């Protein structure tokens, strides 16, 4: 790796006053800047991430003049972890993405317990936990790109795995992205013991869409009876009357003249207005107008005059196919009832929908009589 090294160093030397960031960004190889000689302004230790090199890590650990590797200090305590911005340890994909599952187990990410995996049944949970930890800290400081180094002072001499990561100094923020996988230094993965944990790739996105998570036995602490019953509830709700469970409820949306269909999740809306806006956005030439509820409970019935306005005022109307296979005008029934019965949406020209209007208005009238049934 010497040529790049030299290259970097040269650059460093030639631009002493410039921050290390520039040096790195010029480096097409995406190498991390190394500062063995303390020549650049980089005040902190850089480490090579390109090749897996225990040696380099060791070298760095010895401490270079002016080097700053807070993560490696033996008195490193848990609380400090939080203050640093860390990257996930073993991302397979650049920066934000998942963590390599095979290496999860070995990571001692400065976990407060600092355990290493021992052969005899140390639960894989810890592997999961460790990864979770680094993952969380990534959340804490997603801008910075320094992977967390490990070196929990308490159990340095363990025969187990202590994964030492090469650190990136806090000062060097740029162009880390390419380097992630190479940052990882690890010993052989511990053989799994007989525990029944499933290790899956964990997304480091705690607040976003859920990814498959490693399941820790007995966590969260909920009685299996409860989880089984809830699962059955959702399933039954689907089966019993076609009413969907609390999950997503996607229905196809077709529009006359459009070359392809779309799908919407009805659960993401709570009123007709919201659905209308969404459909509008989706089919930009589409106008639905003021179809549906006023947003307040009890006023979800379309008045006769309103419906007429709707039909005359806009080019298109939205219709839906219900459980019985009939095509109905959207907006007649309360929202909750609508999403329970809607199987498919169709946006048709109002001229085609004229036939529906009288029926809809009559039904509206009938519904007005049964007012008490609504607003519940």
């Amino acid at each position, binding site marked *: 790796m010497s040529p790049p090294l030299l290259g970097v160093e040269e650059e460093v030397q030639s631009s002493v006053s410039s921050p290390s960031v520039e040096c790195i960004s010029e480096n097409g190889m995406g190498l991390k800047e190394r500062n063995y000689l303390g020549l650049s302004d980089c005040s902190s230790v850089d480490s090579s991430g390109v090749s897996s090199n225990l040696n380099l890590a060791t070298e760095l650990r010895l401490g270079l003049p002016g080097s700053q590797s807070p993560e490696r200090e033996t008195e490193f305590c*848990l609380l400090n972890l939080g203050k640093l911005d860390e990257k996930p340890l073993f991302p397979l994909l650049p920066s934000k993405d998942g963590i390599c599952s095979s290496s999860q187990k070995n990571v001692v990410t400065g976990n407060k317990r600092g355990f290493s995996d021992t052969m005899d049944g140390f639960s894989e949970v810890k592997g999961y936990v460790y990864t979770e930890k680094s993952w969380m800290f990534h959340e804490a400081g997603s801008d910075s790109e320094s992977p967390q180094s490990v070196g929990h002072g308490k159990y340095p001499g363990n025969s187990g795995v202590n994964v030492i990561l090469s650190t990136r100094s806090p000062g060097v923020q740029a162009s880390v992205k390419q380097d992630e996988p190479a940052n990882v230094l690890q010993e052989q993965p511990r053989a799994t013991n007989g525990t029944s944990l499933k290790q899956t790739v964990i997304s480091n996105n705690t607040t976003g869409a859920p990814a498959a998570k490693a399941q820790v036995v007995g966590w969260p602490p909920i009685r299996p009876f409860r989880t089984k019953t809830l699962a059955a509830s959702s399933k039954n709700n689907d089966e019993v009357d076609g009413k969907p469970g609390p999950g997503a409820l996607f229905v196809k949306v077709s529009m006359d003249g459009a070359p392809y269909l779309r799908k919407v999740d009805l659960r993401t809306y709570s009123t007709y207005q919201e659905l209308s806006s969404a459909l509008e956005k989706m089919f930009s030439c589409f106008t639905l107008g003021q179809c549906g509820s006023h947003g307040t409970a009890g006023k979800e019935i379309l008045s006769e005059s309103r419906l007429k306005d709707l039909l005359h005022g806009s080019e298109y109307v939205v219709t839906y196919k219900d459980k019985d296979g009939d095509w109905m005008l959207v907006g007649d029934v309360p929202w909750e009832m609508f999403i329970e019965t809607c199987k498919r949406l169709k946006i048709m020209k109002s001229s085609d929908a004229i036939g529906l209007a009288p029926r809809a208005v009559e039904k509206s009238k009938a519904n007005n009589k049964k007012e008490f049934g609504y607003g519940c």
Partner: protein
Amino acid sequence: MNYFPDEVLEHVFDFITSHKDRNSVSLVCKSWYKIERYSRQRVFIGNCYSISPERLIARFPGLKSLTLKGKPHFADFNLVPHDWGGFVYPWIEALAKSRIGLEELRLKRMVVSDESLELLSKSFVNFKSLVLVSCEGFTTDGLAAIAANCRFLRELDLQENEVDDHRGHWLSCFPESCTSLISLNFACLRGEVNLGALERLVSRSPNLKSLRLNRAVPLDTLQKLLMRAPQLVDLGIGSYVHDPFSEAYNKLKIAIQRCKSIRSLSGFLEVALHCMSAIYPICGNLTFLNLSYAPGLHGNKLMKLIQHCRKLQRLWILDCIGDKGLGVVALTCKELQELRVFPSDPFEAGNAAVTEEGLVLVSAGCPKLNSLLYFCQQMTNAALITVAKNCPNFIRFRLCILDPIKPDPVTNQPLDEGFGAIVQSCKGLKRLSLSGLLTDQVFLYIGMYAEQLEMLSIAFAADSDKGMLYVLNGCKKLRKLEIRDCPFGDAALLEDVGKYETMRSLWMSSCEVTLGGCKSVAEKMPSLNVEIIDESEQMEFNLDDKQKVDKMYLYRTLVGHRKDAPEYVWIL
């Protein structure tokens, strides 16, 4: 010294009902011990292996009501293998052989076989009440035996049991002569029931106060049942799905309005949101509302329902209520004492819909709050400190952050200070469950301030043995300590083995204790059973004392090693 004849003392003791008090009474002197034991009718045994049925019978010949608990609490979370123990049969057998006139049996986390139920039903003429919570091992055949043979049965209460439902006609087995039912709860059964038999049973049970149905009971049957039992105090609705325009639904509305005594509502295992308005008339009187099995009830409809429940004291809900929904609870339910928020999607932590905000809102709005079980996405120290200030009356505080070691997301600090505030402020705290990122510091606080603490659950916490030591040294009233995945080792375990005799039990799994450490405890304390649960059977092959023990459960006992332990349980 007795100035009164025994009968007078007995009469006085009748007024002493709490188990603790009666235990204290029996320690005063031999004479009081004797009087107390002959007059004692209700006995509570928190660990079925701490005493034998024979000794129980010998001491309390007048026994009428027995409560037994079997497996350790962490068995609820799949940490204890199924056949670990907790069999009720030997108890029933022994009681049956004696002349004990058993009338009530309440079991929790025990293995109950159909044989035991059958034996139970045939052995005690006056048997009145069977309550099974989180038990397993029986089928509806066993229930049929109870129904058929217990002529004076008043209470059959099945809560969250794993029952093998043979879809038999166990309900039909209640004879026509059985008219004494006060409480019937079969919500946990998954199978069909004979609806006609159910209707007839309810019709002939004028004293029925509590009825909790399972999912298989449809709305129109519910309506008929309510018409026949307007005196109900506690109702569990199974299926609540119907067409709001139907005749049956109208009838239901009328029926519900007649039930002016309902104070407790649960179930809604299947629910149609647009039918909820029928429930509003009874909401104003509710003191207990359990919607934790109703994932179909959410959003605005849920809010509307809650807004009607101004007298609510206990609320069990799913987290799809959201922080906003909890805000509605805070505004509406000023009498709230107990709140339980369960996760609707437990294994996808990113989806948990409640955060610290919801809890803070409830604490601000409901000053009487004293019992909490809260599964949430995240928690902050600031929130916990606020909650501690708002609600100093907590007796039970169980917080479960779905991510087991998540720090305060705002400050990235551990939650030591937050929980510290809770224990410092809530001087009457008896039960505490911790989660989130925690160091030894929180245990220092617990040891210092949690003087009344009786039960503590710890997971993925602490830095060192000090954590456990703070607790063992500080919490004088500690009875149950359960720990998983913490760095507590032999040093902590062995510091004060005498302490364990003052406690009911200690559970440690995935910690740092070694076989040698456990052996040491067992040696020093013969009054304890020290069980090593080793499913992978590694212990057989490797008897090295330095080996870490995966699961250890120790408990005090008067009767030595139990004889019914399976192979993978090694009692030291």
